[in-house]
């Protein structure tokens, strides 16, 4: 056990060391180029036109600001929930993506003065019976991971009786599932959804949800650049440029009382502490508040991992036996299955199962879609492991069983498989480790696994501690298995030499 502790400690120190290197490395980057992180596809703020050009309200604004500062812009596409750790680790200088200024976020990051006042909105399918948020009782609601919509929906889940909240990384996958009917409503920023549904008659924004909140650009805590950008925004507002952008992208000019037209002070943190390294990456307060979320995620991860491992084992054993002993055609099909599904990336398969199968009438929930993909792939790998194990059993064992008149079934169950199992336990454990790690991919289909929960928690708290905690939990889950495999391999090696 103390060995385990030592390893965990070593791992933690390594993370901390790597993160500090990343932090200092980011700060040394070229001063003439401003690196801007944006969740591309967030209309009308930052998205691609039909020619693939990046356009949008905030794209125009950030270019204008950079040119005023005499600098160039380099845009990096980052999912919304990833923007927070990206600015904190200085991978990017500025984050844009209609980010709402909140007190919680101001504890860990800085914002320039706001340039847009927003609310949330409810979007539905036009043929839906849902007419207001009240109609969503007992229904499934979609949000963007860690967004203002996510925060509002989570806080009001009890009040409105939402059955389930599905969390997506951006408008496209969220709308896709809304259109298919997997979700009943999508709660997201009103300007984006009004713009997005303009030319989509099957969708309708039916209700403004008054959450208040204003958008601005986000920076790492106490970043000088934030002050410089803030000054430029002041002058741009005075020159009417930002309201020109409003007219360009929304068709009307903003009222004089809004933050689009009026200059305001730079939002300050109520707690003026400078976050040091430990407060940023190993923040105890953030850890304690987000731990229940992480534990929920862990539960899902373990459930998904367990089901996938067990069913994958059964499928793999069946495939291995078919491949080895079935008549030619069946054996060939089994081999084809094994080869194909060992070649397809799991993520691709998962996306096909989740987003493509509904078009042929197979509509799986995120959990079952993820379990199906994991079982299909794990079955293929397990089949190869079993095949190798069975082929390692000496021919004499089969002959002795046959000579005794044992049936095929008893030969396998009593003689061959018990010996094969010993050989295959180390590689099977390795495969199980991979399956559990691969459950993290399920977060792309809005399944609230450990990684997804950690991502959401870090976006809401604007602090990467939940991600570090998730890494620690994965480690605590998998390191014992890894050590067990090493132990078994060593044991079998020793026996061979004995």
């Amino acid at each position: 056990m103390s060995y385990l502790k030592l390893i965990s400690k070593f791992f933690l120190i390594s993370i901390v060391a790597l993160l500090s290197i990343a932090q200092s490395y980011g700060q040394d980057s070229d001063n003439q180029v401003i690196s801007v992180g944006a969740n591309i596809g967030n209309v009308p703020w930052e998205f691609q036109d039909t020619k693939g050009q990046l356009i949008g309200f905030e794209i125009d604004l950030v270019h204008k600001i950079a040119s005023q500062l005499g600098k160039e812009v380099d845009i990096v596409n980052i999912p919304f929930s990833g923007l927070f750790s990206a600015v904190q680790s200085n991978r990017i200088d500025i984050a844009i993506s209609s980010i709402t200024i909140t007190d919680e976020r101001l504890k860990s990051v800085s914002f320039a003065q706001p340039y847009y006042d927003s609310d949330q909105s409810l979007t539905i399918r036009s043929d839906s019976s849902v007419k207001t948020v009240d109609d969503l009782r007992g229904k499934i609601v979609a949000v963007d991971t860690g967004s203002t919509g996510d925060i509002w929906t989570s806080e009001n889940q009890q009040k409105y009786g939402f059955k389930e909240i599905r969390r997506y990384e951006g408008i496209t996958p969220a709308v896709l599932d809304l259109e298919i009917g997997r979700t009943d409503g999508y709660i997201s920023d009103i300007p984006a959804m009004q713009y997005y549904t303009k030319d989509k008659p099957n969708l309708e924004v039916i209700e403004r949800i008054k959450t208040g909140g204003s958008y601005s650009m986000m920076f790492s805590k106490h970043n000088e650049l934030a002050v410089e950008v803030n000054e430029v925004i002041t002058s741009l507002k005075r020159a009417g440029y930002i309201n020109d952008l409003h007219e360009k992208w929304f068709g009307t000019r903003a009222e004089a009382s809004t933050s689009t037209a009026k200059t305001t002070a730079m939002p300050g943190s109520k707690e003026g502490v400078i976050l040091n390294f430990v407060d940023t990456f190993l923040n105890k307060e953030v850890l304690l508040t987000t731990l229940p979320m992480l534990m929920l995620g862990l539960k899902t991860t373990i459930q998904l991992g367990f089901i996938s491992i067990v069913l994958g084992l059964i499928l793999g054993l069946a495939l291995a036996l078919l491949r080895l002993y079935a008549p030619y055609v069946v054996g060939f099909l089994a081999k084809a299955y094994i080869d194909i599904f060992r070649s397809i990336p799991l993520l691709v398969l998962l996306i096909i199962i989740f987003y493509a199968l509904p078009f042929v009438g197979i509509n799986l929930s995120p959990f079952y879609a993820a379990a199906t993909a994991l079982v299909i792939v794990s079955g293929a790998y397990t089949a190869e492991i079993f095949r190798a194990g069975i082929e390692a059993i000496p021919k004499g064992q089969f002959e002795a069983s046959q000579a005794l008149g044992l049936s095929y079934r008893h030969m396998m169950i009593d003689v061959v498989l018990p010996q094969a199992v010993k050989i295959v336990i180390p590689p099977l454990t390795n495969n199980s480790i991979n399956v559990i790690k691969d459950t993290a991919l399920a977060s792309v289909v809005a399944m609230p696994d450990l990684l997804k929960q950690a991502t959401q928690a870090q976006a809401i708290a604007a602090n990467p501690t939940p991600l570090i905690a998730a890494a620690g939990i994965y480690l605590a889950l998998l390191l014992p298995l890894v050590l067990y495999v090493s132990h078994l391999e060593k044991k079998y090696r020793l026996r061979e030499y004995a």
Partner: protein
Amino acid sequence: MKTLIKLESVSKHFGNFRALSNINLQVDEGEVLSVIGPSGSGKSTMIRCINLLEQYDSSGSIIVDNKLVKKGKALREVRANIGMVFQNFNLFPHMTILDNVTLAPMRTGGLSDADAKKRAHALLEEVGILDQADKYPDQLSGGQQQRVAIARALAMEPKAMLFDEPTSALDPEMVGEVLNVIKNLADRGVTMIVVTHEMGFARQVSDKVVFMDSGQIVESGTPSEIFDSAKESRTRDFLKSVLSHEAYTNKR
């Protein structure tokens, strides 16, 4: 006397290689047949055809206890009626000695746990291994393992036993204990075919000796017909080289 095993024009090809060529052979109930001959002469292949561990060519036929040996449902019953002992013992390494012996009677013979154990105890006593019943194969010497393998084959109460070079993988000092067990079975009247290089054993125990070379039966007869007055020069040459070697090792 009833004929138990009968091979008629049995041939066997491995691709283009002819391993057996037109074998005709008959073993009566209670008879002990030894098969001798140089390595690669087809001795093992022949007895492996009898329980269909090798599929013989369709031109010939093998009859065991009035039943044709062929693939299909009846094959398991035929196999259960013929015990086989291998050169490399082929015990099940993950089972105790007792479980090795009780497995087939329980799974195929329909014996209860208690009956199978009772039978196993008697057989292990007969081959002198009863005190090792709870050990695993790799804790036993080669000679002991081969005696367990004999008990395992006998546990199905087969009508005949096939021995495929049962002492070839043994250290010299263990050959005797295994041959003694086989000899006791012969004395008890068990029908058997023994592929062997032990000429003294073949001469002493057999009712009939068959000499094979190049996939053919060169000649067969009583032990004294083969060992003292072989008709074929190939038989005489083989015996001369083997016996001079035995004389050399005995002198040493």
